[in-house]
């Protein structure tokens, strides 16, 4: 009975109800869109950054993160790779070995990080091959080949087809030296990578740096970062069985994690302010309604309706109003977000900055259950909670004084 009465009461003041609904609907729509945009941009940032180099997670020897030394090794990686690739959500497991070397061209030399990679699996983990500026990416079967950052090559005064000398120390602390032909140059837009990174075939790397088939890390990828995150417990179990550890995206990119956390906290303040403003507007409307209907409440009390029931009826009116407003916001916001999720939102003039972080020039919002519901639910909860105060005040009404109210 209360629900049906509350529903009808809601439409006594149609204009006021519709205005209240619009304000809550607009706020809900805004929150759905902003949260989706935020989550989408985080996904883009994480995916872009991780795909460029690290992969979505890595299996490493314990302590490798603090001491990324070439002698910190995964022995016999092949069976581990096979196990990892069998885990649901894992699309690829790419073996890598890496160290720091001096790259030289005659008298000119620069320090660089060189990675030994298996091109056939690396292309499924890293987008570095797609950042090709000149020449070609490494291919399976390559032996005498190196793929350099464009800036590094320019600094060395080298181009595609030239040879570059490489000098470092092997896993056995012996001097490791080699000379390789530059087959391609990459341009990621990230200055640090473009001037300090090189990739070479894993077999050649192992030969040059005195490795016996060992690698330093196994980089993992999946269709989406979330798939790999879901697989983490199983990955950790497998890694532990081999005396290894798994580092997730946040451990691989702690700065990115901190940047996101900072952005979440600042944007949360904005969202909470928006929710608070809408709540106050709605509660103000509720207070007006309670004042206007005090006499009516007095009559209901006189007829024998209990004060608590009248309070519950008012609260139900408020909940229905808030639910309608929020639902309309989601109903309008979700298709809008889905459209932009497909087409992206261009960020004019930001292309270069975005590229520096390995990001596309468009931002793609991401509609998920959280982005679709968190904002509207926050409004609903806030209004429901705030509405308890005037509704509880109704319980204190005295029939005679209420009936005397204008």
């Amino acid at each position: 009975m209360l629900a049906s009465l509350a529903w009808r009461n809601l439409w006594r003041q149609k204009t006021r109800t519709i205005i209240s609904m619009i304000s809550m609907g607009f706020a809900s729509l805004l929150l759905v869109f902003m949260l989706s945009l935020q989550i989408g941009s985080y996904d883009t940032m994480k995916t872009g950054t991780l795909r460029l180099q690290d992969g979505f997670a890595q299996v490493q020897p314990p302590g490798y993160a603090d001491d990324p030394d070439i002698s910190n090794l995964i022995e016999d990686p092949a069976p581990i790779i096979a196990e990892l690739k069998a885990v649901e959500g894992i699309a690829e497991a790419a073996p890598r070995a890496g160290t720091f070397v001096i790259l030289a061209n005659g008298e000119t030399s620069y320090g660089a990080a060189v990675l030994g990679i298996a091109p056939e699996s690396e292309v499924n983990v890293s987008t570095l091959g797609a950042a090709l500026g000149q020449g070609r990416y490494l291919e399976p079967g390559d032996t005498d080949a190196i793929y350099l950052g464009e800036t590094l090559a320019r600094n060395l005064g080298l181009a595609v087809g030239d040879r570059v000398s490489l000098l470092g120390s092997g896993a056995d602390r012996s001097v490791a030296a080699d000379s390789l032909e530059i087959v391609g140059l990459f341009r990621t837009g990230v200055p640090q990578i473009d001037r300090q990174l090189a990739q070479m075939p894993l077999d050649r790397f192992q030969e040059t740096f005195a490795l016996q088939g060992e690698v330093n890390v196994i980089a993992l990828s999946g269709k989406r970062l979330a798939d790999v995150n879901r697989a983490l417990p199983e990955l950790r179990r497998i890694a532990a069985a081999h005396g290894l550890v798994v580092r997730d995206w946040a451990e691989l990119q702690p700065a990115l994690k901190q940047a996101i956390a900072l952005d979440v906290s600042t944007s949360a303040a904005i969202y909470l302010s928006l929710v608070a403003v809408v709540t106050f507007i709605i509660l103000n409307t509720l207070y007006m309604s309670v004042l206007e209907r005090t006499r009516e409440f007095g009559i209901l009390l006189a007829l024998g309706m209990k004060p608590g029931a009248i309070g519950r009826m008012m609260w139900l009116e408020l909940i229905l109003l808030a639910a309608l407003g929020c639902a309309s916001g989601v109903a309008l916001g979700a298709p809008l977000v889905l459209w932009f999720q497909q087409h992206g939102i261009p960020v004019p003039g930001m292309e270069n900055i975005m590229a520096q972080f390995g990001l596309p020039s468009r931002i793609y919002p991401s509609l998920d259950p959280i982005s679709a519901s968190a904002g509207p639910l926050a409004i609903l909860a806030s209004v429901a909670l705030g509405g308890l105060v005037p509704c509880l005040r109704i319980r204190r009404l005295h029939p005679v004084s209420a009936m005397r109210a204008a």
Partner: protein
Amino acid sequence: MCPERAGTRNRIARGQPEGALRERSPLVSCRGLIKTYVQGAIEVPALRGVDLDLARGDFATLAGPSGSGKTTLLNMIGGLDRPSAGDVVLDGRNLATLGKAELAELRLHRIGFVFQSYNLIPVLSALENVEFILRLQGIAPRERRQRALEALADVGLEGLEGRRPAHLSGGQQQRVAVARALVGRPAIVLADEPTANLDTRNAEELIELMAALNARLGTTFLMGTHDARVIARAQRHIELTDGRISSDETRPAG
């Protein structure tokens, strides 16, 4: 000591069944009723010691000049307000001993109200307004609908059940209010200026209607009114002056 109260005590002493005693005891008994409103530092006496008994089936009017205490007395009897001193016993229950929720229950089941300005729920149809009381009483839907339809038929509103108050005339709205007051089968109907907002024809029709329902159902009516037509139709007329009963006359029925 009032004779009725003394008589009741004697009958209890002789061991008569309580139900029978209740039937014979007055439906409403007010003793030493005082109500003083405090407005800041000023005390405004509204009732100055009212003793009143209403028997079951009374069709009584309560009249008096403005400020004489009619509405205050109706509110006290209806359990809407509490006296500053004195007791109201309704249907054997001393209202002073009842809490807020118990008073609400008592109003719901034993008292019907008719107000000057009808006070129907605007979002409900005539039928739903009448059903509302039965819903509060927890009556099953089928019985509720049947009783509400009968109550509306009793007040001559067949065919208008689906109309909302805004689409009914003042007279029709007050009839719905009477049906609402009676549908819960109360012991007493308290009506405060029930004809004040009605034109002559509607007022006369309403008076006849209430008198007929009183005669047929035996429900007690106490009406606060200035309307001479209502007073003339009543079997009992109580006059209040300055918060005291200045006259109380009973006329032969008819």
